[in-house]
């Protein structure tokens, strides 16, 4: 009964030659024929915009959908610190292999070697591409590009544009996209939300989208559908993701048959501004690059946690990352830094009003380099921090705490970035492919642009040239059928308000977030996960029994939009808990308390869990089917990660 093709399609041959060999042999679409193909790109972040721009320029007919009013607002824009590339400009020992190795190791050996190697291989091209577009990367006085260090690496390979690298890279991709819009090679559809995938004869042939201004459901047909809708971190309610970030597009594809891989692999970013109260709508990240100069500490003595930090003497401070991990110090990977912050707070040494915060202190860096140097590097971050907390980080240490930030899991894709549904391709954070169980800092931007600029332009052509396509228009019965289901779904959401429930959508959503954070967050246990598996269906039931939803599906209605996304999160969250329960090892960001080394580090079980967990949907509330893609490591030794 399982009809999907479960072949990773990793090309044969030595690791370093796979991509070149593959590119040399895959099929091409003749330039004159490209205009005959219609391509849908859902999402306009780094992956979506770069893909749409590149494919439009090649001559395909592209429609690009974005949920905001402009593609420039996609959440890639909020990435602060930088983008990795194996340029080795600082001559400090970097290479394609080392970037590959750091990424595989950082991901705790739960990603595919071939994909990661390709990512490292194309990384230098990304920098060249962005510079050619006029991206104003930071420069040295000699005019060359500047680099900085990021967590999980011992080389400086991160390129940056002040503290707003994501913004500048996205604006580069956006400008390339708008150039194609101007050339009429890309049609831009803004304020649209994809609500379903249309599969015809086993192939992805279109989508149903809702126009968020008019409320109208629209049918769009194509020869291939590219999903670049980002991650699903907002299942936790509080995260660093944007208000419109959601899991609906990937979840609807999953419900249409696309496998969901490693859903429990989520990243908790160590340096975010702590929660200030119930009213909190989202969390704000402080770039990991701050850990280059900031020192993380808590008081040694519990008695000192409420003291003014500047009054705590040097010998009474515990710089716990430097103490425990002398070789990486404050630059350990994100999962390690987050877990250690949780540990010291659980130990009663957390600071701030809630006791759920640690200090990130720039005192020594300011003393060493001067405030101006620090301002030059991080000025906008310091300003952002001060705006939110009303505290001046030049004078008092920042208070930070981990927050949900990124999801490594996502729709399963093969080497060509195609899901198990032919024609359905998945790019960027929406797929699962490159980061294993933990993503290194400055690698999300790299992956989004790698997928969009340098992978999909080749692999999509191969798919199109290798298949024949019957003519499918939006008049095809499949479109009417799927549209009918979506219409029914939207109507049932709208009807929730009439059932007499007293809670708002936001209230249920907050509860879901709490269940997820407490049980499927930084430390997971069998007991907690089982509790989540009980609580989530209960919340789902409560939701469908009736919540306050604002009526009006025939126009702009943010409350109704949110209800649809929460309805999907109430299903997706359950799959995450199930996956986390099933994987009884610890790896990367997935930390099972039952599986740790004597030092309290994540303990993998390679014998049992060296695979990608790809889940098949079997109905709401029904047990999904688990399919395993074994991971083979031929070029690296599977070592217990150590950053000591």
């Amino acid at each position: 009964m399982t009809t999907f093709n479960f072949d990773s399609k990793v090309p044969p041959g030595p690791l370093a030659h796979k991509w070149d060999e593959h590119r040399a042999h895959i099929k091409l679409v003749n330039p004159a024929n490209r205009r005959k193909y219609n391509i849908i790109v859902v999402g306009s972040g780094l992956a979506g915009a770069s893909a749409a721009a590149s494919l439009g320029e090649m001559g395909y007919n592209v429609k690009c959908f974005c949920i905001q009013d402009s593609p420039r607002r996609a959440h890639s824009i909020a990435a602060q610190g930088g983008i990795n590339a194996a340029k080795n400009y600082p001559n400090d020992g970097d290479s394609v292999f080392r970037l590959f190795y750091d990424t595989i190791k950082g991901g705790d050996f739960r990603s595919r070697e071939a994909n990661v190697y390709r990512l490292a291989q194309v990384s230098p091209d990304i920098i060249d591409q962005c510079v050619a577009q006029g991206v104003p990367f930071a420069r040295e006085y000699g005019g060359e590009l500047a680099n900085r260090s990021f967590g999980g690496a011992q080389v400086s390979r991160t390129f940056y544009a002040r503290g707003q690298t994501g913004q500048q890279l996205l604006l580069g991709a956006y400008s390339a996209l708008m150039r194609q819009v101007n050339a009429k090679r890309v049609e831009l559809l803004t304020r649209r939300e994809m609500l379903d995938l249309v599969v015809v004869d086993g192939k992805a042939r279109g989508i149903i989208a809702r126009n968020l201004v008019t409320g109208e459901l629209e049918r769009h047909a194509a020869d291939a559908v590219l999903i670049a809708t980002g991650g699903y971190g907002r299942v936790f309610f509080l995260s660093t993701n944007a208000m419109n970030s959601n899991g609906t597009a990937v979840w609807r594809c999953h419900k249409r048959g696309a496998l969901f891989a490693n859903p429990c692999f989520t990243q908790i970013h160590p340096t975010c501004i702590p929660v200030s109260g119930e009213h909190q709508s989202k969390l704000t990240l402080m770039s990991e690059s701050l850990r280059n100069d900031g020192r993380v500490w808590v008081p040694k003595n519990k008695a000192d946690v409420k003291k003014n930090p500047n009054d705590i003497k040097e010998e009474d401070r515990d710089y716990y990352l430097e103490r425990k991990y002398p070789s990486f110090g404050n630059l350990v990977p994100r999962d390690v830094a987050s877990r250690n912050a949780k540990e010291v707070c659980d130990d009663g040494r957390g600071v701030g009003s809630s006791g759920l915060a640690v200090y990130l202190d720039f005192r020594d860096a300011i003393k060493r380099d001067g405030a101006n140097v620090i301002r030059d590097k991080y000025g906008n971050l310091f300003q952002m921090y001060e705006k939110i907390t009303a505290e001046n980080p030049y004078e008092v240490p920042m208070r930070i705490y981990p927050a949900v930030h990124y999801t490594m899991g996502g729709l399963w894709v093969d080497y060509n970035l195609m899901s198990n549904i032919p024609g359905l391709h998945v790019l960027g954070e929406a797929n699962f492919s490159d980061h294993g169980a933990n993503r290194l800092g400055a690698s999300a931007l790299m992956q989004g642009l790698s997928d969009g600029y340098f992978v999909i332009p080749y692999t999509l052509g191969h798919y199109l040239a290798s298949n024949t396509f019957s003519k499918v228009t939006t008049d095809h019965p499949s479109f009417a059928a799927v549209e009918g289901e979506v219409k029914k779904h939207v109507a049932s959401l709208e009807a929730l308000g009439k059932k007499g429930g007293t809670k708002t959508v936001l209230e249920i959503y907050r509860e879901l977030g709490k269940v997820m954070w407490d049980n499927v967050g930084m430390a997971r246990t069998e007991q907690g996960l089982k509790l989540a598996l009980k609580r989530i269906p209960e919340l789902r039931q409560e939701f469908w029994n009736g919540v306050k939803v604002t009526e009006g599906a025939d126009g702009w209605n943010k409350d109704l939009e949110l209800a649809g996304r929460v309805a999907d999160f109430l299903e997706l969250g359950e799959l995450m808990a199930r996956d986390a329960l099933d994987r009884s090892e610890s790896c990367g960001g997935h930390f099972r308390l039952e599986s740790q080394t004597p030092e309290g580090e994540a303990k993998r079980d390679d014998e049992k869990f060296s695979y990608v967990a790809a889940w098949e949907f079997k109905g709401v509330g029904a047990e999904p089917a688990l399919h395993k893609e074994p991971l083979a490591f031929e070029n690296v030794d599977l070592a217990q990660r150590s950053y000591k």
Partner: protein
Amino acid sequence: MSNTSQSRHSMHLTLLVWRQEGPHKPGSLEKFTAKNVSEDMSFLEMLDFVNEDIIKSGKRPIEFDSDCREGICGCCGVVINGQPHGPDRATATCQLHMRTFKDGDTIVIEPLRAKAFPIIKDLVVDRGALDRVMSAGGFVSVKTGPHADANAILIPKPIADLAMDAAACIGCGACVAACPNASAALFTSAKISQLALLPQGKPEAARRVTGMVEQMDKEGFGNCTNIGECRAACPKEVSIDFIAKMKREYFKAMFAPMESAAGDGGA
């Protein structure tokens, strides 16, 4: 230094909010009372909080745009007591915190108003005109593919920094709403300047400035008369020096050889 929300005062506020059902419908200010507002809330969290009560009472919530809520996506933006993004300098609406206000305040909240920004609903406006200005030339015409090594062209740090100052624009449209002429000069000049400063943008500098300025006029934005309200409202403090640069680039383009007449393939 600690900031427990309990230890801080909560405020009672009166809100006068612009309500408009749709683009061609009449609108007016509606009064709401916001009780127990914490000063740690952001301005948009305050609106979320008020909306929760409105939804519970079965009425239609206040519609407004927002996304990243960390001041970088440019999605949010309302006019607060007559000022786009409110009273704090260099602060987008989502970064404005309620500690700026005091108990008993009346706050008037309106959309970003301009002829080129039709209202969609309540505080939500259509800023598509800015995207169309961008598509009229706000790019460097390079293909996706291999390029010269990124260090092949050296860019002096002061030039790269200045280009970055211009590139910091978040495209929120506050400059337009602040300008008595509803001019988009600050927005447009930021992109033109970024690219004109960098060697990569120079080859098509003339056609870029011509295309973008013409599109700006076509969209119904007014002319710049050097008033400077735009700079005061800009959450990223983009300098009006860039408007002067845009004007210089425009004059240069007028007297430049007819480079802009050549199409993609050259004439």
